[in-house]
C-alpha cells in the first residue's frame, strides 16, 4: 500500500500543519510515512504546499508528479493541481475560495466550504482541519479516530484546549464530503 | 487656511503596511478594507477631506506607492 497526498494553499492557511496531522496519524497507526514541504526562496509570503506519503514499506520518493489525493485550499492551488491530479484521483477543494467547478471528468472533485464551516464552528483557522476531515473519506487507511488521537497526542500543550473544536472540524468536513455524490 | 491636496495610492505597490496612515498629520488615511489589491493587500486611501498635500505619507512609504498633488501650483520639495 502507498498513498500520496498533496496539500496546497496560501501560506497561513495551515497547509503544513494539516499535512503533519496526517503524518502523525499514519505514524501512530504503525505506518511508514514521509512529510515534505515546498520550501521557497529565502524570503516571505507566497503559496505553500506539502506532500505526505503513507505506505507499509520503505518509501522511495517523498514527492510524486501526479498525486492521487489532493487538498486545494485556494484557487491557484485548485488550478495547478486539478491538472496534476492522477486520473481517478480525489481532489478536495475549499469551495469558499474558488469560483469555478472542476474541468476534468476523470477525477473526483469534492467541494467543501471549509471557511464557512470553520466559521460556524467559531474558529476560521480550523478550515484546514475541515479539509482534512473531508480527505479522510477518500483515505480508508486513516480513520477519523486515528486523526483525533494524533491531534491529542501531538498538539502542543498550550493548544490542547482547542481539541474539541478540532475534532468537530474534522467531523464536519468528513460529513460534508460524504454528502457529495461520488 | 491650509493648502488643499490629494493623493493617489498605487494598487501595484501598496502593501497595506499602514506606515503612511500613522504618519499622516491630518489623520485622513486608513486602509480600504472593502477591497484587496491584485497582490492581496488592503490598500491605503484617504477616507475624509483634509489632505494638505504635505507628502509625509509619501516620505514614509517603503514602496513608493503614493503620488501627491496640491492645488496651489508651486510644488514644495517634499522630501529634500
Amino acid at each position: 500500500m502507498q498513498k500520496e497526498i498533496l496539500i496546497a494553499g496560501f501560506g497561513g492557511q495551515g497547509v503544513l500543519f494539516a499535512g503533519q496531522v496526517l503524518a502523525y496519524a499514519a505514524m501512530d497507526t504503525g505506518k511508514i510515512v514521509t512529510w515534505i514541504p515546498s520550501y521557497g526562496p529565502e524570503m516571505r509570503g507566497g503559496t505553500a504546499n506539502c506532500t505526505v506519503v503513507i505506505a507499509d514499506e520503505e518509501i522511495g520518493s517523498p514527492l510524486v508528479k501526479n498525486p492521487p489525493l489532493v487538498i486545494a485550499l485556494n484557487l491557484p492551488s485548485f488550478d495547478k493541481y486539478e491538472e496534476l491530479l492522477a486520473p481517478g484521483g480525489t481532489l478536495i477543494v475549499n469551495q469558499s475560495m474558488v469560483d469555478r467547478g472542476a474541468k476534468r471528468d476523470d477525477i473526483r472533485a469534492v467541494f467543501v466550504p471549509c471557511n464557512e464551516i470553520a466559521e460556524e464552528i467559531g474558529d476560521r483557522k480550523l478550515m484546514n482541519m475541515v479539509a482534512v476531515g473531508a480527505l479522510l473519506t477518500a483515505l480508508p487507511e486513516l480513520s477519523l479516530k486515528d486523526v483525533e488521537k494524533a491531534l491529542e497526542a501531538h498538539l502542543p500543550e498550550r493548544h490542547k484546549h482547542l481539541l474539541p473544536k478540532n475534532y468537530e472540524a474534522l467531523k464536519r468536513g468528513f460529513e460534508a464530503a460524504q454528502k457529495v455524490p461520488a | 487656511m491650509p493648502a488643499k491636496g490629494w493623493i493617489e495610492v498605487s494598487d501595484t505597490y501598496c502593501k497595506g503596511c499602514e506606515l503612511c496612515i500613522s504618519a499622516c498629520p491630518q489623520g485622513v488615511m486608513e486602509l480600504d478594507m472593502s477591497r484587496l489589491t491584485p497582490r492581496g493587500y488592503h490598500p491605503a486611501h484617504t477616507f475624509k477631506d483634509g489632505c494638505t498635500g504635505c507628502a509625509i505619507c509619501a516620505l514614509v512609504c517603503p514602496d513608493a506607492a503614493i503620488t501627491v498633488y496640491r492645488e496651489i501650483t508651486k510644488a514644495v520639495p517634499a522630501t529634500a
Partner: protein
Amino acid sequence: MPKEMWKGNEAIAEAAVRAGLEAYFGYPITPQTEILEYLSKRMPELGRAFVQAESELGAINMVYGAACTGVRVMSSSSSPGVSLMMEGLSYIAGTEVPAVLVNVMRGGPGLGNIAPAQSDYNQAVHGGGHGDYPRIVLAPSSVQEAIDLMVLSFDLAEKYRMICMVILDGSVGQIMEPAEMPEMKPIVRKDFEWATNGAVGRERRILSSIYIDPPAEEVTNFRLAKRWQEVQADEVRYKEYYLDDAEFVVVGFGTAGRVALSAVRAARAEGIKVGLLRPVTVSPYPYQVIDQLAGRVSAFLVTEMNMGQMLEDVRLAVRGRVPVEFYGRTGGVVPFPDEILNEIRRVAAGRLSAEADPRVSWLTRMASVK
C-alpha cells in the same frame, strides 16, 4: 527508543548531541539553518559550546581549534558556505585531527538557489581544498539514515583522525519522517595522545600542518594514504535493492537514490528486471561492488541531482565493460520517479547512448524535454 517524527535538519542536530557533540560552530544559511538554530538552544541547555561564528571561515577554524583538543566538534553549512571552508578543511586534514562537517547542498553554482541539489559531490569527494588528502563522506537519504550516519561520523572521524563530511540535499534536511534517536551518550573526554589540551603532567604537544621539508610532507601524504587504504577496506557502505536477479542496475545516492527506488519498483511492476545500488559512503566509494556487478549486468544507469559527478566514479569502476547511462536533474530540480522510470524503460529497451560520455546524449534528451 520509540520512533518520533523528526525533521531532517533537527534530527541531525539532536543525533550529534546524543553522539557527544561538545562544541558547534556555524553560520546561518538556508537550507541548513535549522541545525544551527536547534543547537543554539540545545547546546547551552547542556552547558556545551555553541558559537554563531562571524562567517564560515571563522566557523571552520573554530572547529579546527576545538578539534585539536580532542573533543567532538562539528559545523554545518550549505554549498556557498562550504566553499569558504576549503582552506580550513585542508589544514584539518593535514593536521590529522577529527572533525565533522555537514553540507546540506543547494542549487548552484554561485548564489544559485536554496532548492535541493547534489552538485557538491565532486567538491566533497574529489576536489575541495588544496593538496592530497583523504576524507570520509557519508550520504544519507532519509531522516533515520541521517541520524545513524551522524553518530557514525564522529566515530569514524575519531578512529581515523580524519574529516568526516555528511552531505545531504536540501530535501533530506527538510523532510519529516518517523525515526528513532540513539540514547544520549555521556560525555567522556578521551585524552588522545595527540590532543593539545594543556601539557599538564606530560610532554608538550604540537599540532600543525607544516612540513617545511618536502620529504617529511611526502611521508605525511603516504601515512594518510595508508590510513585511507584501511578506510577503503573496512568502511565502505551501500544499500542494495533487487540486485540478485537484476539485468541492469540504477546507481544513485541520497534523494536521487530514493527517488530511483520508486522508479525501480514501478519498473519491476512492469516486469523489467532492474536493481538499485545506493552508495551510503560516497567516499570511500563502493568501487568493488560495482566492479563485480559490471561482470554480470548489461548496463548501469546513474541518476544524480547534478550534471553527472558520481557518474565518473561508476565509470571508473565499470572500466568500459558495459554501457553506463546517465540521467540527472540539477539546479535545485528534484526528479520525479516517472522521469527515472522512463529512463529505465529506455535502457531496458536497449536504446543506449553511443558516445563515450553519456552526458552528451543525456543533454540531447533533456533538450527535447524542454
